[in-house]
């Protein structure tokens, strides 16, 4: 059971980490609280549904995040740019966007549940006589590799430096000659692309339907509430912690109890500490 909890917790945490990482980057760079983030997970999942048939699952997993990032890029240039650095406006605007995306998906693809076959079947023996769906191992692997890649890109590359400068102060960045508009667009594309990857990865494990986005949004926000909206490292640590705690309750008991307990504990943690969330930086 312990191994089961560890394995399931890490795979839940991996999805949380990918979504929360995207949220953190988007908020950190352009001050937009993206309530449509769950809908980009949804787009990723539907991308997998549509592409894995004709292209095969592996190519679909590579292409889906790119497609979602392209949609994100287009939306940033047309809509999100009007919502920069205004939390309240951005929340209302992106929730409107979320409703629009969800309803468009429902109109085009229908409200029924869709399924994606597991790209690799079989189970990995974990020792102690326990097994674990092989796809979850792939999912965790994908998440870790992507997270490291994004972290390295942020920390070491020239464009990552631009991103961090814009996150620190977009006006200074602009006065230094950076194309802040382009940096913002890249940040939104990367953030939504990460959500798309999360959607593509969980599609074979869960049923895919138009309203699935909300639960991922809420999960990512739980992480973000605990970690603060601007800290990548703490977001990843909390994602793993939340995943493990959720699994520790969900495996022996049930999902609903796990959700209630995790949220209760999170609110308690937040209630007992004082105003530490705004000082953290990317």
């Amino acid at each position: 059971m312990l191994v089961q909890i560890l394995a399931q917790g890490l795979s839940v945490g991996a999805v949380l980490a990918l979504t929360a990482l995207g949220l953190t980057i988007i908020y950190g760079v352009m001050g937009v609280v993206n309530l449509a983030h769950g809908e980009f997970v949804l787009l990723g999942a539907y991308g997998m549904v549509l592409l894995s048939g004709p292209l095969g699952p592996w190519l679909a997993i590579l292409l889906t995040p790119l497609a979602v990032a392209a949609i994100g890029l287009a939306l940033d240039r047309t809509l999100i740019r009007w919502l920069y650095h205004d939390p309240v406006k951005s929340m209302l605007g992106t929730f409107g966007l979320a409703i629009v995306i969800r309803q468009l998906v429902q109109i085009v693809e229908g409200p029924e549940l869709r399924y994606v076959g597991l790209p690799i079947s079989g189970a990995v023996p974990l020792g102690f006589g326990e097994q674990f769906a092989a796809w979850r191992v792939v999912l965790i692997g994908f998440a870790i590799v992507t997270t490291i890649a994004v972290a390295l890109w942020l920390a070491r590359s020239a464009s990552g430096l631009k991103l961090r400068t814009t996150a620190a102060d977009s006006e200074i960045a602009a006065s230094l000659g950076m194309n802040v508009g382009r940096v913002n667009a890249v940040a939104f594309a990367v953030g939504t692309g990460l959500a798309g990857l999360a959607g593509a990865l969980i599609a074979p494990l869960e049923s895919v339907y138009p309203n699935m986005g909300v639960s991922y949004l809420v999960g990512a926000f739980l992480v973000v509430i605990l970690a603060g909206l601007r800290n990548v490292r703490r977001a990843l640590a909390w994602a793993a912690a939340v995943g493990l705690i959720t699994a520790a309750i969900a495996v022996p008991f049930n999902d609903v109890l796990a959700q209630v307990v995790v949220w209760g504990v999170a609110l308690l943690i937040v209630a007992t500490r004082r105003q530490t969330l705004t000082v953290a930086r990317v």
Partner: protein
Amino acid sequence: MKTLHLPFSLARAQGHESPQTKAHPSAVALPLVLLAGLMPLIVSGFTLSLLALWLPLVILAISLDFLWGENHVISFGHGAFFAGGGYVAGLLLKGPQSNSTAANYAILGTSGSETHSAFQSLVHTLAAPQLAGVPILALILPPLLCGIVGALVGAVIFNIGSVEIYAPLVTLGVGVIAATVFLQLSALGGSNGLSSIPAFTREIASGSQRSIYYFNAAWLVLVYLGYAAFRRSRAGRRWRASGDDPIRLQALGVGVHRLRATGFAASTALAGLAGALYVGASGFMSTQTAGVLFSVQALIWVAVGGPGSLWAPLVGVLAIQFGQQELSERLQDSWQLLLGAVLILVVLVAPGGLTGLAASLARLARPRSRQPVEREPVQPEAIQSESIREPVEREPIQSEGAMP
């Protein structure tokens, strides 16, 4: 040193009414009472039953506007409080159910007849005190319980920095969790919801549509009067100040955290009352109402009405609900799509909502008001030099200005 970041206010961008110009309660009372009283003579019975259903929604919108328009706090979880109030009132109005089987009353997995009978006797006790044939606690318990939960949530929210960001996120989570829990509680009917709940007026007027309408209209007038009076009062000014500039108010010696948490609790209590009145009219409550989508719809009412304006809740609810009534049949899935688009449009183009637009139009129609809106276009470079040298001609202050 970065500039102090103040919470954004749609209301302030629109030009917040000063306390002196906020409508006096009596100015609200007369049109509201007349309108509410005469409505049954004007509209058909069907529209009247719809209005009976929508008036509690106006109260819900007022509870949100109280937070958003007056304190810059957005809640994505008020639907849960509305639904919670509705469930409590529904259970008490229905009273103990003798014919339902014990197996249906499993609470969070712990099934059995003991839970069932304990729950039934609790409902029986609570439904006992009656006034005019109505279990009086069905009107008292919903706001009370919602207020207590709201106080706990508020204590958390206002303990975090950047309230304007984290309050929506926390309430979003609370709403989603509440909806999940309601779905699991079979005492609340699970996914079927509670149905065939009798009206509050069942003994007085045998629960006719007209009596339900008058009952809810009376409550709405009461709440509206209270809200109008509050907005003009000292407490109302303090409440607004705690949202406009919490740091300065704290420096002035006001316990801002406690004040705002109390205000949040009051808002959730009002949402609970609205839920109770709603089930009295609809006879039905399900977990859909607790969900995020309904909470957001409530925010859309306020956004369309114009947060911070007294009439916004009424205007917003009636505009959207009439629209939904007329269009949702024809558009089906596209109705939600339209609602999302409307939200985006309001946020981008008309942050003052319908009341804000009306106010701008009224200002345009009165060019001889104190602050002229239309001016001669001035060249950008001319602004600084000219406006400093020549004093701008001001019109004499009108008597309606009521200067102290």
